[in-house]
C-alpha cells in the first residue's frame, strides 16, 4: 500500500460551504442581538436588585427577632436586687456617699431596724478591743 504523505499531496480543503449571502446578513444579525441584549439587560438587572434588597431586608428582620425578644426579656428583669448589686459592685458609690444622702426619716427608720437589746450591746462593747479607747473619748 502506498504511504500517504500530507506534504506530497495537493492541499486538501475543508470541504465546508456556507449558505449564499450568509455574510451579507451576518453583521445586521449580530448588531440586532447586541441591541436586544442591551435593552433586556437593564430591567432584568433592576428587578434583580429589588429582589436582592428585599431578600436582604427579610434576612435582617429575621436575624433581629431573637435580639429584640431578648432585649425585652432582660429589661423586665431589672429589679431592685439587680440595681443593688450594680450599685454595690459596679459603681463608684461608697458608704460615705450613701450616708450623705440619708435624711432624718431614713435615720429614724434605721434606728428602728437596729433595735439592739442592752445585753447584746454590752457583749459587743466588752468583746471589742477598742472599748477603752471609746470610753476615754
Amino acid at each position, binding site marked *: *500500500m*502506498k*504511504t*500517504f*504523505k*500530507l506534504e506530497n*499531496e495537493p492541499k*486538501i*480543503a*475543508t*470541504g*465546508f*460551504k*456556507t*449558505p449564499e449571502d*450568509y*455574510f451579507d446578513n*451576518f*453583521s445586521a*444579525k*449580530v*448588531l440586532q*442581538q*447586541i441591541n436586544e*441584549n442591551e435593552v433586556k439587560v437593564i430591567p432584568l438587572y433592576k428587578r434583580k436588585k429589588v429582589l436582592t434588597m428585599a431578600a436582604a431586608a427579610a434576612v435582617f428582620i429575621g436575624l433581629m427577632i431573637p435580639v429584640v425578644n431578648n432585649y425585652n426579656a432582660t429589661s423586665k428583669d431589672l429589679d431592685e436586687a439587680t440595681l443593688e448589686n450594680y450599685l454595690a459592685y459596679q459603681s463608684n458609690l461608697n458608704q460615705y456617699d450613701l450616708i450623705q444622702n440619708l435624711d432624718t426619716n431614713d435615720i429614724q427608720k434605721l434606728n428602728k431596724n437596729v433595735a439592739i437589746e442592752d445585753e447584746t450591746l454590752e457583749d459587743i462593747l466588752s468583746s471589742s478591743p477598742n472599748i477603752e479607747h471609746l470610753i476615754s473619748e
Partner: protein
Amino acid sequence: MTDEKEFIQQLLNPKTQDLAFQKLLSDYQKPLYSHIRNIVLNHDDTDDVLQNTFVKVFQYLKNFKGESKLFSWMYRIATNEALTFLNQKAKISGITSEDLQNKTIDNLKADSYFDGNEIQLKLQKAIVTLPEKQQLVFKMKYFEELKYEEISEILGTSVGALKASYHHAVKKIEIYITTN
C-alpha cells in the same frame, strides 16, 4: 500597532463605536467563521457560536487591556466559545465530546453545507482521532494557515510545543489515511 490602538479607541468611543464595530465585523467574520466551523463542524452551530463570539467581544471590549493583539484576543474568545459549545452539546446529549465529534463526522456526508470528496472526508475523520490540542493546532496551521507565532498568542503555548504538536498530528493523520 498604533493603528490598532487608534482602532480600539474608536471601538470604545460611543460616537465612533458603531462604525468601528461594523468594520471589526466585516474584517473578522470570515476568518472567525472558518476557525469556529473547523471546531464545531456544522454550519448552524457555527452560526450560533460566531454570533455569541461577537456579542462577547462587544461586551468585553471595555475590559480589553491591549496586552495582546485584537486579532489573537478575538480568536481566543472564539476558540473558548466553540469548545464550551461542544462540551455543553455533548453534556446535553449525555455523551462524551469525542463521541459527539464522531457522530458529527458521520453526519457530514448528509450535511448540505459540506461538499467534500472522499479524501476530504477521510482527513476530517483522521483529525477527530487526535487529542483536542493537536486537532486545534492542526486545523489552525493546515486549514487556516496561521503562523506558529499567531497560534502561540491565541493558545498561549510556546512555538516549540506547537511545532511538536503539529508534527505528531501530521504523522497520526498520515498513518490513519494510509491504513483506512
